[in-house]
């Protein structure tokens, strides 16, 4: 146990309820390790988005404890949360692009929020848009982009600042199978080359087979199951960044 690395995220007996309704998530206890690639699966209404909201710090748990990057979220002052959020990259289910801003400015947002020098922002965003094949659409605003283009802008925005953890909620839901595969390869590249921990929520079981080293967390009626042993340590011998071979 002593050689076990500290996870990026640790949930300890976490429960979530909205108002006085019954818990939508119950007794979640798991650890996400650096450099791993996780799929979060489950039927619609299983609680995937609620769990992701807690992961990307949009929702507090009703009970239990969460540690993220060594910080206790329960005791952490609210004013320090932005610093933690800047270590995350999030691809929202409905993209959540700023409609007034161009594709370029949307992708530039995380860097500008972090106070990056504008000259570096211009170069980095140009490279990133080129990478996702949208250099020619840099000055288009989201309402004029197709669903797939918006999705790629959202992904570019999520990875531009090289997050320690990438969280994607149904990132392939609005694109054709070919584009879905390209996006997955992009996540894999981020995972393999930069060591970013990736968490992808999807209800598309075909996607799971496309990333061979991925680990699967399954949600069913608010309870988490562990079909591939993803929540145990070591989660998988070949998992990148976990010390496996």
């Amino acid at each position: 146990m002593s050689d076990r690395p500290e996870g990026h995220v640790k949930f300890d007996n976490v429960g979530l309820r909205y108002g006085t309704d019954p818990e939508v998530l119950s007794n979640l206890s798991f650890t996400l390790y650096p450099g791993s690639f996780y799929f979060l699966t489950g039927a619609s209404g299983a609680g995937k988005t609620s769990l992701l909201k807690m992961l990307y710090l949009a929702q507090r748990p009703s009970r239990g404890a969460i540690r993220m990057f060594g910080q206790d979220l329960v005791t952490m002052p609210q004013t320090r949360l932005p610093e933690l959020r800047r270590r995350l990259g999030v691809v929202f289910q409905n993209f959540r692009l700023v409609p007034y801003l161009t594709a370029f400015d949307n992708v530039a947002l995380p860097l500008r929020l972090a106070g990056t020098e504008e000259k570096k922002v211009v170069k980095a965003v140009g490279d990133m848009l080129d990478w996702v094949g949208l250099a020619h659409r840099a000055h288009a605003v989201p309402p004029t982009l197709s669903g797939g283009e918006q999705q790629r802008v959202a992904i570019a925005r999520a990875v531009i600042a090289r997050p320690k953890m990438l969280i994607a909620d149904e990132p392939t839901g609005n694109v054709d199978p070919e584009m879905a595969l390209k996006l997955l390869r992009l996540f894999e590249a981020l995972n393999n080359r930069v060591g970013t921990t990736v968490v992808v929520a999807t209800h598309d079981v075909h996607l799971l087979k496309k990333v061979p080293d991925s680990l699967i967390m399954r949600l069913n009626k608010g309870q988490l199951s562990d079909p591939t042993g993803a929540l145990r340590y070591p989660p998988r011998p070949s998992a990148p960044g976990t010390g496996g071979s």
Partner: protein
Amino acid sequence: MSTLPPLSAETDNEAEDTLAPVRPRGRAAARLLPPTRLTGPIPWVIAILIALVVIAAAGGLALRNLASSANAGLSRAVSVQIVEPNPDLRSARGAAAVKVLTGIEGVQAVRLVPEADLNAMLEPWLGEGVASGDVPIPALIDVELTRSAGPDEIARIEALLGAQVPGARVDAQGDWLRPVQDALAALQYLAFGLIALVALATAAAVWLSARNAFAAARETVEIMHLLGASQRQIAAVFLRDVVREAAFGAVFGGLAGAGAVWLLGQQFAALDSGMVGGGGLMLADWLVIACIPLAGVLLAMATARITIALALRDML
């Protein structure tokens, strides 16, 4: 798309491991949202409110000047009346009173008001017959003291004078103006009360403006929030617009109010009345008035910052 581009803006791992506070940069924050144009009634509402504050403040300052001018002129002035129906005796006692008063310590100047001057002053009320001597008019002596004519001073002069000049009555001239001064003070309080009320109305207008702007951009704010924007950064974006609107309203309202005050001043100056003349605005007063638009902008900034902070508090 398979090769992740090297990012010139990429942060190194050591830097990432430190949760150092990031300082929002003004220019970067300003690029987060597109600038909005001056639309809607808020700048005009602020302009009207600032103009009202300027006029109320100018009124309050003018009244204060008027009160202090009147007070300065009369605080050391004393009137001595010799009430005696016999003209010869009255004249003799008047001369005696002047002599006694001139020798009293603390008396700077003594002037027996000529009978002709008294008659001229009273003629509008008593008619032309006042000069005939049918109506006995007291002799009047203006006395200026070296210090304020307080009750003790009046009593002392009355005692010294009464021993040699029977029928002499000593009054502090300021006493005659006391009701006027009380009224002026009440008007000053009213002006400052109006300023406070209009300042509250300005804050309310800005609060509504900031809240509406925030509600309209809530989706964008949430996105920025989830991408790691700090409260200061989000507030800076909104403050930029609020400050621009408030500055426009403050400058416009300040100029309009100052113009109205200047015109009113010209009108009152044309009256050429001694008392009203004391109610003019000094350079320091104009400086105070010039600070009102600036105070309005600061008030708008503080109100907007508090409004946005309260709205963001509800977000995790």
